[in-house]
């Protein structure tokens, strides 16, 4: 399989109603790492991820994958901060990405059932997805994103509304995906989570990339006052 990476952003900006939400940003996302997109609320993390995933159109500049558009979108997935559940059963939600792309119901169910075991959600297959707890829903959303083995996975604050145990579950699944070779870009404003997971860190502030560095360098030798303050636990506004 040809890789869809690197993904390159070239002087990209996003504006809404004349207000600049993001950019100008230029960066390359290369294979095999977990990048944490870090920054306070409203910094533009979601906008950046949605831009890369094609849910937001750039006002100027270019977003480009190494593969043609159609192929690039077929090999990436997105987990939203508030999971979007189809009005179907747990199993139905998990099968959907497979059956929507021409895989038979029987085969999709087989695969989905294995995933449910991994999630610890076996026994819930005929339950409505909307009746799951917040943590279970987010796990299901993550598995639904992973079930087609995407090369690139976007996670938008997947643990923002979860308690410790659920966060641990999600982080375990993320770690397994990462070990399986999935390239991950994950937004968070949780410093501890960034320290636990990051290979490299991209720090956003007011829509601009202030730093992009390997995790070790980022945490041990921050370059800007804003990052120093953020790492200190001070309020960065």
């Amino acid at each position, binding site marked *: 399989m040809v890789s869809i990476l690197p993904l390159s952003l070239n002087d990209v900006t996003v504006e809404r109603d004349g207000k600049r939400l993001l950019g100008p940003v230029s960066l390359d996302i290369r294979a095999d790492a977990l990048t944490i997109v870090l920054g306070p609320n409203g910094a533009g993390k979601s906008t950046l991820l949605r831009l890369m*995933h*094609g*849910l937001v159109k750039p006002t100027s500049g270019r977003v480009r994958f190494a593969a043609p558009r159609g192929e690039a*979108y*077929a090999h990436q*997935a*997105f987990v*939203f901060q508030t999971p*979007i559940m*189809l*009005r*179907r059963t747990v199993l139905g939600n998990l099968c*959907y*990405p497979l059956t*929507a*792309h021409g895989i038979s119901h029987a085969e999709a169910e087989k695969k989905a059932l294995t995933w449910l075991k991994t999630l610890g959600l076996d026994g819930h297959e005929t339950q*409505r997805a*909307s009746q799951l707890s917040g943590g279970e829903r987010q796990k299901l959303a993550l598995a639904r994103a992973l079930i087609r083995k995407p090369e690139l996975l976007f996670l938008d604050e997947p643990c923002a509304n979860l308690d410790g145990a659920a966060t641990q579950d999600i982080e375990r699944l993320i770690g397994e995906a990462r070990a399986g070779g999935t390239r991950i870009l994950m937004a968070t404003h949780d410093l501890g989570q960034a320290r636990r997971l990051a290979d490299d860190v991209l720090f956003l502030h007011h829509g601009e990339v202030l730093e992009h560095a390997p995790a070790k360098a980022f945490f041990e030798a921050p370059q800007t006052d804003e990052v120093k303050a953020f790492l200190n636990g001070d309020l960065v506004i």
Partner: protein
Amino acid sequence: MLEIWLGIKSAFWLIVTLDADLIEIACRSLVVTLSAVAIAAAIALPLGAWLAIGRYRFRRLVIAVLNALMGLPPVVVGLVVYLMLSRSGPFGVMGLLFTPWAMIIAQVIILTPLIASIAHQSIRDLWAEYHDLLISLNTSRSQRIKTLLWDSRRALLTAALAGFGRGIGEVGAIMIVGGNIDHATRVMTTAIALETSKGDFALAIGLGFVLIAMAFAVNITIHMLSGTEVRDRW
């Protein structure tokens, strides 16, 4: 007073003995309206979905036309269909006027905007909910439409039932294009109108009972459907 009482009594008798005329007329009503609902739904549901998810140049225009059609008095629809199907009209050669087909055509025109409009609203709400996910999952347009139709199927069934309720009780249009011909195009509503004007209340009241029962059944089903929708809160 006595006349009404006698009418009710013989109407009751007509129903319990399954009077041939009454059954024939009620069945024709059902066949005409169910056919019309099926055809209208086949047009209206994809149209509703198309209107809900698309950003087309003519979308607003189509919605405006639908709303205008919904407000159209059925007799006017009947008149237009009559003119189209009459001997000198553009479709005159097909010889459909005064047949059940003409009645079905008129009802399809009346019901399609109604069903499409209800379907459009519920699919639009679901699309707002699903939008990011379905885009993210790289689904095709037809896949999205299929998913939205399937996942809002209860609301769509409600729309179809509303169409049935409207169609089964409609009298103006089908009277004009069907002609209320005995054993050919006579249905419950037109039969009631005729029998009442003749002062022959037994059949009119009997058919009235059947009509009310059907309308009740439809409304109760709609109520239950939307009730479970709310309670289950998918």
